[in-house]
């Protein structure tokens, strides 16, 4: 059966992509941010996952407000980078793990999660940036991807508990998939930021650092917090952090936090990552 290799939580700030595109990786402003990912990048490269499940939100690029799926699942063979207004970025297409994705669709519906099933989907920075932060800028991505998209823009957004439960289901789906492939699960978004309203520019490094420190060892508080609490503590767009709970929910109760990193501000956002491994 397939194996859950590790869980990775990371920001997906679009300015990270812009910095890479402008050649600012090693600039004074950005180098400390990118360097913090190096140990996790090396670990992932050494452990060679076959499939990356990327949990993210579309940012008004592939879905408009005419139809807003609370939960969507990509089952495509290939995903192109989306045009977010500046033309599609020059990153490679993403090969889909379509067979595993259909297996996941079956397990989701049997487990009472009912996603929009997407056969054609352009993927925006929410998926691109985590892939670049983990795998760099290869000519071809070394893993196949499964996009899981969560609505975090139009209310009602799903609850933190629901995200956790989706993670529990994802774990069972991975471990009932009849190959010996290794799966890396990425929960993305955050950390604290707010783009809208007079509180725009709100960031909360204290809460962010606590999140980074506790999401592995003591996630209970975050599972039971309300959506409003997320908005208050992490900002209106910081509520994206609920998507990390899908990743955390698919891990064991007790995990090793292999690596973590925090940096603020990346553009207008607290940014960082954790890499979690189940105890053996």
């Amino acid at each position: 059966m397939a194996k859950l290799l590790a869980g990775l939580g990371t920001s997906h700030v679009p300015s990270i992509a812009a910095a890479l595109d402008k050649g600012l990786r090693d600039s004074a402003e950005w180098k400390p941010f990118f360097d913090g990912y190096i140990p996790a990048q090396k670990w992932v490269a050494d452990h060679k996952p076959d499939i990356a499940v990327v949990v993210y939100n579309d940012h008004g690029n592939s879905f408009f407000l005419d139809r807003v799926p609370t939960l969507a699942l990509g089952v495509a063979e290939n995903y192109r980078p989306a045009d977010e207004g500046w033309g599609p970025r020059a990153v490679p297409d993403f090969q889909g793990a379509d067979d595993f994705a259909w297996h996941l669709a079956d397990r989701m519906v049997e487990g009472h999660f009912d996603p929009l099933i997407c056969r054609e989907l352009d993927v925006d920075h929410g998926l691109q940036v985590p892939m670049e932060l983990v795998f760099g800028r290869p000519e071809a991505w070394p893993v196949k991807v499964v996009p899981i998209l969560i609505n975090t823009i139009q209310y009602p957004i799903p609850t933190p508990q629901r995200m956790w439960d989706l993670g529990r289901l994802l774990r069972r789906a991975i471990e009932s998939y009849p190959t010996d492939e290794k799966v890396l699960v990425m929960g993305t978004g955050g950390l604290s930021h707010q783009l809208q309203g007079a509180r725009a520019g709100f960031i909360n490094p204290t809460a962010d650092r606590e999140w980074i420190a506790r999401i592995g060892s003591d996630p209970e508080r975050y599972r039971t917090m309300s959506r409003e609490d997320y908005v208050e503590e992490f900002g209106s767009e910081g509520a994206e952090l609920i998507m990390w709970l899908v990743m955390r929910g698919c891990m064991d109760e007790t995990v090793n936090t292999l690596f973590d990193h925090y940096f603020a501000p990346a553009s207008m956002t607290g940014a960082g990552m954790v890499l979690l491994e189940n105890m053996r």
Partner: protein
Amino acid sequence: MTDADRIPDTPLFDRPRSNAGYALNKMAMGLSTPDGRAAFLADEDAYLDRFALTPEQRNAVKSRDWAEMVRLGGNLFYILKISAVDPTPIRAIGAAQAGMELQEFLDTRLGKVTNG
């Protein structure tokens, strides 16, 4: 979310805002194609005429009044596409909504807490 505006200065994109801003956001979404961007750049008024904006929304777009666009139901993820055809840094859009000069915004909202 029974009281979406409980958190001060934090407009959650709920049903009233989504309804109020639908045409405005749809206009902005049209800028995610090369044809839409070309049309906007060639004749902004003619492009805006395609969408059922209120006079207030139209004025907010024309004057690039980001706070007003959000007040009238615009969501940043859509209206940000205007900044792709009329380049405006995201931090400037943030400062405008906060009602601050850019440097004050960077210092008080983002800078002083950099290593918080």
